[in-house]
């Protein structure tokens, strides 16, 4: 075990009061300075200049298989390989890419997925075999446990969707070879996620890699003659195209239909959130909101829809993860547009493919913090989840309360910049209180989290006096966050035991500007 012999890690205390490593995977880091405090300098990264003379004039970039493509891309030890999660747990291409690399005898790769999924558990074997050195990307399930136990050679680096774009754009991560699984593509490399038997909707997560990686491989199971319309990925950025029988298991790519929660308590939470938007006047003609595919978020959309109809108001735009419920809003004229980051169910996929008002967005347009603005901050309200929130409204989505890595950040951090950020969460799960004194791992600073809605009451951040005033006289159960916490502690038999962790970092959580917000420690 590396624990015994590992040199003492140099740590610095950041503006969130957290001890964070000053060097991560060989790169110097800036500790988190506070919201909006870090000023980036310099120019964006750029891929190498290429010439048409090295590409076929007829535009046919096909090669027989993934291994050939990787060899032609010059795959060698220590490179950074990227994959994407638009096929979610149904993806087979990420694993095939790394396994092909293993077959070629390559070692010490950095794997840079936009997110990992349980079906990618065999990556553990590739880390054990030395093919993969470490992962920078979300890790949950078996991969999360592997990292939490300190078995990975490098640090895990957890970034938001916007933070991943920022890291690539700012040159913090240089992708050597990007492998993009495409539900439909042409021989030139134009690709779309909207069509084909493995249709998944938006390919936005792969867009940065297609623009900034040295080499780009498109893998598809639905090759169409040029042109592939619409091209979410531009063939002009693509080096090679590989045709395979299947890029994934359609049943795990999108759900047939996403399900509203059936839990009475969670339905109550959803109802409170919708009611909160109505009472505060956030729900008004021309407003905008974002809600994901979680059970509570879906139920919230359903309640809000009824309220919008009753009040005769419609939204200018809504942001997904799109689902049947957002599509229904669009089709009923209750929103002018869906700006879609990823597509969760078949209704969403069909709508994106056919309705011009259902538009695919990317982490650049939606989430990137090092740009000239983004959509997430223009949203009036966003409904998010969290594993924990503390009495100072800081949120955690990456670790369990016992310190184990739980899941990735997704767009969560980026969404905190909306006009009204609402965490819609049960007050406890399996006896584990959700409102804690201090979050196990800070993923979002409390100053950006405005409202915590639980089944036992709604806590408004004292920084948002405007929201507190707007709810005065309403029937909503507005309570101080400490009050709700106290009730739940009484219910659960006191606060839980503290997590048992060592002083050895296993992963870091990046803030949206690339600074280091917190550290995930090896479990004891």
């Amino acid at each position: 075990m590396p624990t015994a012999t590992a040199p003492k890690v140099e740590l610095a205390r950041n503006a969130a009061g957290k001890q964070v490593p000053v060097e991560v995977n060989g790169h110097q880091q800036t500790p988190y300075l506070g919201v909006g405090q870090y000023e980036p300098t310099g120019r964006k990264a750029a891929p190498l200049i290429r010439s048409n003379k090295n590409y076929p004039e007829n535009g046919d970039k096909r090669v027989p298989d993934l291994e050939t493509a990787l060899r032609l891309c010059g795959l060698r030890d220590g490179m950074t390989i990227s994959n994407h999660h638009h096929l979610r747990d149904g993806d087979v291409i990420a694993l095939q890419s790394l396994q092909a690399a293993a077959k070629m005898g390559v070692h010490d790769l950095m794997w840079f997925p936009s997110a990992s999924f349980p079906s990618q558990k065999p990556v553990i074997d590739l880390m054990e075999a030395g093919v993969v050195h470490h992962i920078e990307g979300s890790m949950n399930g078996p991969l999360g446990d592997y990292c939490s136990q300190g078995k990975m050679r490098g640090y895990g680096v957890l970034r938001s969707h916007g933070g991943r774009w920022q890291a690539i754009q700012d040159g913090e991560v240089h992708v050597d070879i990007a492998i993009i699984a495409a539900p439909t593509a042409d021989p030139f490399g134009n690709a779309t996620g909207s069509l084909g038997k493995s249709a998944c909707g938006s390919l936005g997560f792969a867009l940065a890699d297609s623009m900034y990686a040295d080499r780009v491989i498109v893998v598809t199971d639905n090759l169409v003659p040029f042109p592939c319309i619409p091209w979410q990925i531009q063939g002009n950025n693509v080096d090679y195209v590989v045709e395979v029988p299947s890029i994934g298991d359609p049943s795990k790519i999108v759900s047939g239909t996403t399900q509203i929660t059936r839990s009475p308590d969670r339905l109550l939470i959803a109802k409170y959130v919708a009611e909160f938007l109505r009472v505060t006047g956030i729900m008004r003609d021309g407003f905008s909101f974002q809600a994901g595919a979680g059970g509570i978020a879906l139920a919230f959309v359903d309640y809000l829809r009824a309220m919008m109809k009753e009040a005769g108001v419609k939204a200018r735009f809504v942001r997904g993860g799109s689902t049947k419920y957002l599509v229904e809003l669009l089709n009923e004229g209750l929103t002018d547009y869906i700006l879609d980051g990823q597509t969760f169910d078949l209704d969403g996929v069909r709508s994106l493919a056919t309705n011009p008002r259902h538009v695919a967005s990317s982490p650049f347009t939606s989430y990137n913090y090092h740009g000239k603005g983004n959509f997430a901050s223009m949203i009036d309200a966003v409904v998010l989840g969290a594993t924990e929130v503390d009495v100072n409204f800081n949120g955690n989505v990456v670790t369990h309360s016992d310190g184990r890595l739980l899941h990735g950040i997704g767009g969560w951090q980026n969404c905190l910049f909306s006009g009204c950020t609402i965490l819609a969460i049960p007050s406890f799960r399996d006896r584990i209180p959700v409102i804690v004194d201090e979050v196990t791992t800070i993923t979002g600073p409390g100053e950006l989290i405005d409202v915590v809605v639980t089944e036992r009451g709604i806590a408004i951040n004292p920084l948002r006096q405007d929201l507190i005033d707007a709810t005065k006289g309403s029937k909503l159960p507005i309570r101080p966050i400490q009050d709700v916490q106290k009730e739940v502690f009484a219910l659960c038999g006191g606060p839980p035991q503290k997590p048992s962790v060592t002083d050895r970092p296993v992963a870091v959580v990046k803030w949206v500007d690339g600074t280091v917000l917190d550290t995930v420690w090896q479990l004891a």
Partner: protein
Amino acid sequence: MGTGALARPAAATLRVEEAEMSTTIAELAATYSAGRSGKDVRSDQKATFTPRTSGGIEIELASRVASYYGDSIRAQAVEVLKQMGVVDAHLKIEDEGALPFVISARIEAAVRRAWGGKGKRVLPERTAKQPSSQRDRLRRSRLYLPGAEPKYFVSAALHGPDAIILDLEDSVHPSEKDASRILVRNALRCVDFGSCERMVRINQLPLGLADLEEVIPEHPDLILLPKTETAEQVVEVARKIAEVKRLNAMSGPIWLMPILESALGIENAFAIAKADESVVALTIGLEDYTADLGVVKTLEGSESLYARTRLVNAAKAAGIQAIDSVFGDVGDMAGLRAWGERSRAMGFEGMGCIHPGQIAVIHDAYAPTQPEIDKALKIVAAYEDAQQKGLGVVSLGSKMIDPPVVNRALKLVARARAMNLVKE
């Protein structure tokens, strides 16, 4: 009880599992379990108690919240065993995130099963408020909570029913009656049911008498008597409640709501309503009633029209509330609303609900309409005006208002006020 004597369970309903040869004592040890565990189980636990003659207390714990509450669960388990006087035993706990009042109930139930139902009660600290309820309070909705399913208890009040029912009868399997009784008792001590009236549905007599012994000391507001057919049954329950109250030096009323679920019960409705002064409402169980008649229960309910009107009449004759049955299709909110509106028109003042989603619809259905309220308010104002002027006749515009109309308006306004429907 450190003698190691293994009392065989007296009641046939107790679950006994064949045990393997103990490694520490060379005799056949039996194990006794209570509660549930498994992947799909939430907020419960299975406690398996194995008495032995030596070796002290050994706790074996598997819990999905072990890293958060493992120490707490062990400490609580030791404490419960100690309070029950257990010196030597193996206790296996398979925990699915049970809250402390559940943990205590499950361990107590397992030990009592080992001791043939006997054994000291372990009463967790009483943290729940004990509001007393009024005879004629609003009883529009009563939310059924299966007495064997602790996961629904702690959030029930958040959904705003007028009452919750901790059910020991039909929702509890016969083999789980003893354990559920203990669980419900602990819930009455520890769970904050807010402003809900706290009801318990006991089993039919004589099993219901054992329920009363366990729960009455926790002062529920109201006891539901299932399948009541005669006034004598009500009297027997009232007598038992009085006895337990006397033993525990308790004061304050505990109301009764008999459930009529048979042709005979309906025939005796008035006598049942008048059987004891603590009876505050009559209600009807339509599944059993239609089964008794041998007819099919329909959505519009013509087969039970006679029984329901008869019940309303008997209740009103006795000066108590008439409460309707439940509506079984939790997905059909339009059907529920229609049922509730018809029910209100017949004279019922509320009904049961089996899902929190039904509560708001029921409250709406039993609420007087705005035109009704407005008209009643005008009549009441005219009545008060006449009273002030010392007039015997109440008139509104050119119309004279009869006393029964005034009476109805007064009742309606009082009810609307209780539902916060009158803008003052």
